[in-house]
C-alpha cells in the first residue's frame, strides 16, 4: 500500500512515483519525462516529498516502496518548483506567458504567424501544445525575476526536413534519449559541459553529414519547439487522426496521420502499435504528405485526341480501354502489375486477365523484355515505366498511375489512381496481412485501382466484378484460397509506383543526393 497526498493508492512493485501518480490521476508537472523514454531526472520539476527522507525526491526516478507516504503538493514544493521553472524560463522565450496584453493580443491576432525564427507568442507553432505553458498555468506564473538570456545560437535550417533552434532548448534530453535508447543511433548528444551544455550532433555537423536516418523521433518528443518538422509545424490542432499502414515497402509500419482541411498534414509512428519499437523511416515520417498532396497528382482520366491528352470522364475513358482490349487479340496484350497495389486490386487484375485470356502478366522490369519477344501491341501498366518508346511493337499504352510519370507522353489513355492513403483494403507485409485505411479523399476523379478494373470489366460486359467494398473482394479471395504475397519491395526503394519520391519531395532529393555514395542512403 502507498499513500499519496493522504489518499491510499495501490502499490505496484517496480514502478516510479510518477507512474503511480499518473495512473491515479494525480498531476505532477514534468518536462523531461516521456512515456516512451527511460527516466532521466534532469528537469527536477517533478520534485515530491517522501516522508522520512530529507529534502525532495524526483518522482520520475524514485521507485515506490511499500508503505511509502508521498506529498506531491505543498506550499514548499510549489515554491521550489517555481524557482526551478524560473531558471528554465530564463533560457526560453517567455513573453507569451508573461505579457500583460497576451490575452487581448491573442483574440486580436488570430492564428500563428509562420515565423522563420520562433521568438515566442504567436510566432510559436508549439503554442497550443507547449508543455512550458501548461506548467506555467499550473504554477500560476506571472513574473520572472531573472531576465531572459537569449543564447544567440544560429538557427540550424541547413538540413532537410527539420529545423533546429537550440535557443528554445531547455535541456530536457528527450531527443538525446530517444535517439540513443529507442533508435539506438546516438546522433544527438549533449555537447559541451556546464553552462554551455547544448544538444547537437558530435562535432556539430549537420545531420545530413552524420548517420542520421531522419526518423524524426527527436522532433516528436521535443516539448519546446526547438526541434520542428519544417513542413508539418503550422497546422495547429488537426481535425482528426487516422491510423493506417505504410505501403512504400514490405516492412508494414503503422503510422498515425493528422488530417486537417481534408488533407494529410502530419505523420508520426502509431502510438497504439506496440510491436514497433522504432519509428517509421524518413519516407513515412516526412515525405508522404508532401508526396501525396503534390500538385502533380493525376486527377482526371485523359484520352489522346488531336495529338494531345485531354481530360475526360470515367465512362469515356473506360470505354476507350475496353475498345482497345476488344480490338487486339489477348496474346498481344500485356498487363504490368505494380507492386504498390493493395492485395484486392492485384487480385482483380489477375482476375480480369484470366477472364480476357491475357497471359502476359508482368511484375518486374525484367519481364518487359517479353514485349519485343512476343510482339506485344498493347501494354496496360499500373505504374509509369521508363523508355516505353523503345518498344517498337507497342501500339497502345494505357497508364494507370498516381502521378504523371515516365511513359505519360506515349500513353493513349491515362487513368488516375488513388494513393494508398485514399483507399481501404489489405496488404501483405513482413508482419503478415495488415489493413490500409482511407485517410483522405482522392483528388478529383482519381479512383481506387480495384474500382478502375471493375469499371473496365463492366464496360467489357464481364461478370463477377460488381463489388462495393474491398471486404467483398477479400471474401472472394478467401473462398478461392487466394493469398496476397509480400511484394519484394525493400526498405530503401526510392520510388512510389513509377515516380521517384525525390522528384516530388525536394528535401528527400537533397538527402539522397548528399548520400548517394553510401549503400544505405539514410
Amino acid at each position, binding site marked *: 500500500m502507498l499513500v499519496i497526498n493522504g489518499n491510499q493508492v495501490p502499490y505496484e512493485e517496480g514502478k516510479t512515483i510518477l507512474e503511480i501518480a499518473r495512473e491515479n490521476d494525480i498531476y505532477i508537472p514534468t518536462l523531461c519525462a516521456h512515456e516512451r523514454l527511460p527516466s532521466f531526472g534532469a528537469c527536477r520539476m517533478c520534485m515530491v516529498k517522501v516522508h522520512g527522507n530529507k529534502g525532495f525526491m524526483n518522482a520520475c526516478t524514485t521507485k515506490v516502496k511499500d508503505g511509502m507516504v508521498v506529498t506531491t503538493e505543498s506550499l514548499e514544493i510549489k515554491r521550489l518548483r517555481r524557482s526551478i521553472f524560473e531558471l528554465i524560463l530564463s533560457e526560453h522565450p517567455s513573453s507569451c506567458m508573461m505579457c500583460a496584453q497576451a490575452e487581448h493580443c491573442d483574440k486580436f491576432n488570430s492564428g500563428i504567424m509562420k515565423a522563420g525564427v520562433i521568438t515566442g507568442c504567436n510566432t510559436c507553432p508549439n503554442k497550443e501544445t507547449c508543455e512550458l505553458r501548461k506548467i506555467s498555468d499550473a504554477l500560476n506564473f506571472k513574473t520572472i525575476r531573472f531576465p531572459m538570456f537569449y543564447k544567440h545560437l544560429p538557427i540550424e535550417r541547413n538540413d532537410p526536413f527539420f529545423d533546429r533552434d537550440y535557443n528554445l532548448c531547455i535541456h530536457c534530453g528527450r531527443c538525446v534519449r530517444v535517439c540513443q535508447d529507442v533508435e539506438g543511433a546516438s546522433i544527438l548528444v549533449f555537447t559541451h559541459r556546464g553552462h554551455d551544455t547544448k544538444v547537437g550532433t558530435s562535432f556539430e555537423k549537420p545531420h545530413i553529414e552524420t548517420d542520421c536516418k531522419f526518423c524524426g523521433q527527436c522532433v516528436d518528443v521535443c516539448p519546446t519547439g526547438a526541434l520542428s518538422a519544417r513542413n508539418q509545424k503550422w497546422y495547429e490542432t488537426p481535425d482528426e487522426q487516422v491510423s493506417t499502414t505504410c505501403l512504400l515497402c514490405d516492412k508494414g509500419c503503422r503510422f498515425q496521420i493528422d488530417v486537417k482541411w481534408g488533407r494529410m498534414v502530419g505523420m508520426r509512428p502509431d502510438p497504439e502499435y506496440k510491436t514497433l519499437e522504432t519509428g517509421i523511416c524518413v519516407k513515412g515520417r516526412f515525405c508522404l504528405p508532401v508526396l501525396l498532396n503534390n*500538385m502533380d497528382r493525376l*486527377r*482526371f482520366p485523359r*484520352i489522346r*485526341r*488531336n495529338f*494531345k491528352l*485531354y*481530360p*475526360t*470522364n470515367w*465512362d*469515356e475513358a473506360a*470505354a*476507350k480501354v475496353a475498345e482497345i482490349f476488344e480490338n487486339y487479340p489477348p496474346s498481344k496484350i500485356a498487363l504490368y502489375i505494380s507492386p504498390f497495389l493493395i492485395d484486392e486490386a492485384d487480385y482483380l487484375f489477375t482476375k480480369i486477365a484470366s477472364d480476357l485470356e491475357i497471359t502476359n502478366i508482368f511484375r518486374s522490369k525484367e519481364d518487359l523484355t517479353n514485349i519485343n519477344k512476343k510482339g506485344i501491341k498493347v501494354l496496360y501498366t499500373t505504374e509509369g515505366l521508363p523508355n516505353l518508346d523503345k518498344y517498337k511493337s507497342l501500339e497502345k499504352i494505357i497508364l494507370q498511375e498516381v502521378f504523371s510519370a515516365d511513359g505519360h507522353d506515349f500513353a493513349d489513355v491515362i487513368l488516375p489512381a488513388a494513393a494508398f492513403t485514399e483507399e481501404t483494403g489489405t496488404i501483405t507485409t513482413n508482419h503478415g496481412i495488415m489493413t490500409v485505411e482511407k485517410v483522405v479523399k482522392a483528388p*478529383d*476523379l482519381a479512383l481506387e485501382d480495384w474500382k478502375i478494373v471493375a469499371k473496365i470489366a463492366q*464496360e467489357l460486359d464481364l461478370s463477377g466484378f460488381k463489388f462495393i467494398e474491398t471486404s467483398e473482394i477479400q471474401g472472394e479471395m478467401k473462398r478461392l484460397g487466394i493469398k496476397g504475397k509480400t511484394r519484394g519491395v525493400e526498405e530503401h526503394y526510392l520510388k512510389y509506383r513509377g515516380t521517384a519520391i525525390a522528384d516530388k519531395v525536394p528535401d528527400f532529393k537533397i538527402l539522397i543526393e548528399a548520400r548517394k555514395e553510401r549503400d544505405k542512403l539514410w
Partner: protein
Amino acid sequence: MSKKKSPAPKKENAKQSPKDKPAEKPKRPPRPPRTKMPEQPPDIRIKNFVEVPYGLTPEEAQLEAARCIQCKRPKCVEGCPVSVQIPEFIALIKDGHFAEAASKIKETNVLPAVCGRVCPQETQCEETCILGRRGEPVAIGYLERFCADYERLGGHIKLPKKKRPNDKKVAIVGSGPAGLTVAGDLSLLGYKLTIFEAFHKGGGVLVYGIPEFRLPKEIVETEINYLERLGVEIKYNHVIGMCKSINELLTKDGFDAVFIGVGAGLPRFLNIPGENLNGVYSANEYLTRSNLMKAYLYPTYNTPIMKGRKVTVVGGGNVAMDCARTALRLGSDKVMLVYRRAREQMPARAEEVHHAAEEGIDFRLLSNPVEIIGDDTGVVKRIKCQKYQLGEPDDSGRRRPLPIEGEYFELETDLVIIAIGNNANPLIKATTPDIETNKWGNIIVDEFGRTNKNFVYAAGDIVTGGATVISAMGGGRKAATGIHRDLMGIKDEDVQD
C-alpha cells in the same frame, strides 16, 4: 447521356442542306454545314483549367475553309477591327498551306492565337459573312485559331521582314492587347520599342484577366516571345507614374513618343453594406489571383485564393462569366450569377453565356444585391438582393432595369465576386495632370490615338472604358499609325485612305 459516345471528330456530319445552295449557281456542290468545334464535356471541364475547345484537326480546318466562297468584296474584312485579310488566309488553309495562312494573318494581326479565341466574331467578321445571311457563316475564328496553333505547335514561327531601323524610340506603357499591337506594328516599321509593364509578366489583361481555360497562358507567352524576337524590349515591374512619369519618359529617357495602354484597372464596387467582409472579391482580384499568380495551382504557387462552397458572382459581362467558371473549376459546389437585367441584355458573348449555362451556373437574373451579410468573424454568409423588372429602353438601347419595391430575397453564399466593370485607374492622370481626360477619367484621343499632349498617344480601355481585346487592338493599330505619321512628319491630310 450515353456512356459509349464516340470521341471521334464529327467528320461524317457532312449532311447536305439544300438551303445552303445558292440558286443562281446550280452546279456548285452543296456546301457542308459549319464545322462544330469539338470541346471538353461540361461535367469534366468544370473541374480542370485545361482549355475547353480541342481545336480543329487539319482535315476539319480544310473542310471548313472550303465553305468560304471567296467574295470579291469581302464583308468579313470590313467587320474586323484590324482588317485581317480573311479570304486570303482561308484560301491558303483550303490548299493546305497552313503556315503561310498564319503568316498572312500576322501581316495585320500580331495576336492571331489570342484573337481566334477571345474575339467576339459573331458581332464582327462572322456577323458580316455573306454565308450568314442564308445559313451559318464561315467559322473564321476557329480557322484563325487553327492557323496560329498549327504554327506555334509546329515550333516554326517565322519572323516577318522588318524595315531598316530608324533612330526613333517609342515607349509603350502597358503590355496588354493595345500595347502589344502598337509594338508589333511599329517594330516592323523599324522603331526601337520599349514596353513598360507594371506586373512581372507581360500580356496585361490577357494574363491577369482571361482564365487559362479560355486562353492558355502559354499562348500569350509565345506571342510576347515573338515580339521580343522582333527586337521589342520589355521592362517588367515598372509602374509608370510611380517609378517614372510620362514626362520623364519623353525628356529624361529620350523617347520620341509615348503610348499609353494601361487599361481600365480600377474595380467598381456596388457601394452596399458588407462589401469589405472577408469573402468579397473584386473580379480583378479574383482573376488576378487565379490567372496571373496561378492560385489554382496553390500551394505550388504561393498566392492563395478563397474557394468558397457557394459562390455568388455579381454582373453579366464576360468577366462575370470568367469569374463564375473559374469558381466552378476551383471546386465550388454551387455558383450563382446575379444580374439586374435579363439574359438577352447580358453584355457577355453569347458563347460565354452558353458555356457558363452548360457548366451549371445558376443565373439569378433581374435581381441586384443590396446588402452582403456576414457573421461575427467578418466572413460572408448571405447576400440580400432586390428583384428587378425591365422598363423602357435606355440610351444604350437596352431595356432599363427597374427595382421592384419591397421585393427582396436572400441567397446563402460564402464568396461574393463583384464583376460590374472597371473605372479608369487614376495613376497616370494623377502623375500627368496635363493629360486631358473625360469625366470618367478616360483619356481623350483623336482618331489616331493622339492625346492633347504632344507625342503622347493612348488606346484601349483607358480611352474607351472596359471593352474587348480586339477593340483595344484596333485602337492600338490606329495609334501606331498616328505615331508613325507624327514621327515621320507625315500629315494626316496627305494620306489618302
